[in-house]
């Protein structure tokens, strides 16, 4: 082997080594698999969350008229004390409770007037469009980063809302009438920057009739 061939061989080996270490191919499915856990059972998880965490903690909800009284006195402190939110932004959630008189049964909501001392507050109980993350987030009981991906976390909300649509609302809608007195616990969303307490919509978690 002459000197020229040796040089060519060395050059070839060098190019091969550099080339081999510069390019690597991985299956897209493998890359996608990073961070994706086992199949998530939405129904089972939501039911367990409902039974073992959400319902036992409903006693911590703040009475709606007390919330409004504190809100009018000091908005920032009230948000800091009672609101829950997963991230950054103006939209925050509260778990509230109260008692009141049904003023009207509408197509998609039930209007309720609550009173505590001199403080009164009207709110709409949602009976049709139970979607979104109000209950999950108002509970303050779930950490988004404990879930492998955002889709699973959103599915928890879908599972909770399904329980509300199938188990809470039908019996309430069937019996409710103007003049009924009810007690309720549920979640509301308020915008901290553009606060409007005249239009509060409650996603119900628990509704009981005091008089029908």
């Amino acid at each position, binding site marked *: 082997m002459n000197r020229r061939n040796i040089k060519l061989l060395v050059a070839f080996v060098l190019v091969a080594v550099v080339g081999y270490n510069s390019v690597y191919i*991985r299956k*897209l499915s493998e*890359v*996608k698999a*990073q*961070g994706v856990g086992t199949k998530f059972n939405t129904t089972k998880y939501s039911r367990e969350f409902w039974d073992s965490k959400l319902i036992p903690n409903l006693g911590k909800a703040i009475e709606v008229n007390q919330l409004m009284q504190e809100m009018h006195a000091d908005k920032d402190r009230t948000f800091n004390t009672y609101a829950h*939110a*997963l*991230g*950054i*932004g*103006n*939209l925050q959630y509260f778990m509230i409770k109260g008692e009141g008189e049904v003023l009207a049964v509408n197509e*998609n909501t039930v209007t309720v007037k609550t009173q505590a001392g001199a403080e009164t507050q009207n709110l709409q109980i949602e009976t049709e*469009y139970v*979607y*979104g*993350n109000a209950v999950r987030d108002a509970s303050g009981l779930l950490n*988004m*980063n404990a879930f*492998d*991906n*955002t*889709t699973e976390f*959103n599915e928890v909300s*879908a599972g909770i809302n399904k329980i509300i649509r199938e188990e809470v609302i039908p019996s309430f809608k069937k019996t409710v009438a103007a003049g009924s007195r009810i007690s309720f616990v549920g979640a509301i969303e308020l*915008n901290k*920057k*553009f606060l409007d307490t005249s239009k509060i919509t409650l996603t119900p978690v628990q509704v009981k009739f005091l008089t029908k």
Partner: protein
Amino acid sequence: MKRIINILFLLVLIVITGGCKNQSTENTPKKVAVIVSTLNNPWFVVLAETAAAKTRALGYETKIFDSQNNTALEADHFENAITSGYNAILFNSTDADGSIVNVMKAKEAGVPVFCMDREVNSTKAATSQILSDSYSGCIAIGKYFVQSLKKKGNYVELLGLVGDNNTWARSKGFHSVVDNYPGLKMVAQQSADFDRNKAMEVLESILQAHPDIDAVFCGNDAMAMGAYQALAAAGKANRVKVFGFDGADDALQAIKEGKVMATGMQYPKIMAETAALYAQKYFNGKRDFPQKVPVAVEMVTGENVRNYITKN
């Protein structure tokens, strides 16, 4: 022998130079790269420029890299940022899957990556991801959509870039509500790549086959404005309801004028500033960042548009 001495001399020189560099970097300001998917869209220009401005305000050197919606170019930017000694990357990805490998490269090089607005499909790559809660925002729009259409009618959906997670988060949020109403029928679903002109062309074409639609749901405001143009040209703007997403100035004005029904207000400045602040915290020693930080999206309609229309 002389050649060996020369090589040894060269090696010693490299080691000495390297040592000098390490010493000098301790006194020079940290460098933060802002790598953004595109600067051909005003929304992303705001995102990138806010990130760079905040980074500079915090006392760091910064440079914006435009990936031009090209994952290969994005990979080059990451290589450059890593080899040029950038200490952190504020990142807006071109592709939720295709960008993972770039983020992983930075991670392996010890450079933290903070994602802004667009997610990468891995919880083990970026240091933290600050993202618009598109899914929840579109649930709110979906509810308003059903109410506005009184639970019945034919509609078209214009999707964004199919490789972007935000496209599907918005679509899924919307459908998680609307699909529960059998009276609402989606007659066409097509991508218009978040582009105004393309949205106009796509809707014009769809209107040929489906002239009797009642609404159009668009994955961003640029497409909503394009859809409105197509409807206006066809003389249907008054009876077809248009819904967008982003909170762009022209869409807010269109909502005020009754041309567009609703949009989802995003906050690119908050996301960019948060990413820059996270980089600062990282430099100061913090390591336990939440993997995902959602930023709330607020629905804007004719009822509350006055709150947003003067937004800077």
